[in-house]
């Protein structure tokens, strides 16, 4: 299943090539897990180092972690609302941190120095499997949030202003994960491709501003994904009167 339109100029870029691992009957994309483990390892190291000795007057890494915590709390609180944001803050925060670390890790770490038999290491979020997994988790979360908070009254949401909304709201349940996953996937993959093509064509200077733009896009995409996830959960637990 080669991706034919890109074959000629991208011959060296190996788009859509994967490092397959065979686990019994199933196959997985090894490069995605390798980079995600490395990046999750880095994230957990940072967290463990920063929370080892916490004080009332924060020092060093604790400052950074508290800033992140505060940022995520504000995000969750504004989108989900005062009542239940505490339950969902770890999930929203994990989405944000995981996507952010994946995007920036993919852009900042010179993965190309590590040669694989097939495929190449890169941002885990540039693989459609990862983004769809995240988007489906968001879908499950908002259904769970709505049902656990309001029981079957959750389905009032589908006919909320008028029953005419019913088909649109049902379609929304499919478009939400679709748009979430493709937005992230498309942005990160496009960023990697643009940088790769520029490096391929003009190896000096020119790719640098595009790389900075890529870092900006990566951060924004993490924020957008987390904000939308929180918004969907907030929409599901909101009380209509």
């Amino acid at each position, binding site marked *: *299943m*080669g*991706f034919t339109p890109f074959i000629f100029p991208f011959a060296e870029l190996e*788009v*859509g*090539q*994967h*490092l*397959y*691992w*065979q*686990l019994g009957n*199933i*196959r*997985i*994309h*090894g490069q*995605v*897990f*390798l980079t*995600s483990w490395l990046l*999750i390892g880095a994230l*957990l190291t940072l*967290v*463990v180092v920063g*929370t080892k000795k*916490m*004080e*009332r007057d*924060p020092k060093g890494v*604790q400052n950074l*972690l*508290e800033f992140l*915590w*505060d940022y*995520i*709390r504000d995000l969750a609180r504004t989108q989900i609302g005062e009542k239940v944001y505490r339950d969902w*803050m*770890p*999930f929203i*925060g*994990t*989405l944000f*941190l*995981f996507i952010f670390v994946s995007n920036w890790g993919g852009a900042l770490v010179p993965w190309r120095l590590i040669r*694989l*038999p*097939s*495929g190449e290491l890169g941002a*885990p979020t540039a*693989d*459609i*499997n*990862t983004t*769809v*997994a*995240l988007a*489906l*988790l968001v879908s499950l979360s908002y259904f769970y949030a709505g049902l656990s908070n309001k029981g079957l009254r959750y389905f009032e949401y589908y006919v909320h202003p008028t029953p005419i909304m019913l088909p649109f709201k049902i379609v929304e349940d499919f478009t939400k994960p679709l748009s979430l996953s493709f937005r992230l996937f498309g942005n990160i*993959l496009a960023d990697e491709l643009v940088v790769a093509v520029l490096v391929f064509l003009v190896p000096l200077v020119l790719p640098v501003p595009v790389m900075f733009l890529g870092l900006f896009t990566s951060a924004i995409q993490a924020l957008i994904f987390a904000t939308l996830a929180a918004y969907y959960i907030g929409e599901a637990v909101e009380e209509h009167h």
Partner: protein
Amino acid sequence: MTSLLLFGASEGGLFDFDATLPLMAVQVVLLTFILNALFFKPVGRVVEEREDYVISSLAEAKKKLSQVEQLESDLKNQLKEARQAAQSVINEAEADSENLYKEALALATTEANASREEARREIDSQRQSALNQLKSDAEKLGDLIVERLLASK
């Protein structure tokens, strides 16, 4: 990395869905629980403890400030009363000294008047007596002159 780990065939494409998807979902859920235990709970506890500390310190400071304001207004009242008391003492003293002065003045004036009156009376009486003496001396002298003139004749 062992070659066993990196073993793989190269086929696929951009939209190649396989078991990566559910495994990644499981991995993210696990990461959520791990981060909740390692990051969100401990940092949240520290941040919220600090927020409580700041709020309680602020409330305490406000209470102390109101106490200070209360004390300040008390002291101001006391100061005002003390000033009024001092002013009234000063006024009283001034009135007293004024009265004393007036009394002393009146006493001195009457004394002076009395002694002047007495002196005048004394002068009058002495002048009267002097006049009488003079008159009698003049009469005596007249008589004497008359006798001498008559005798010599």
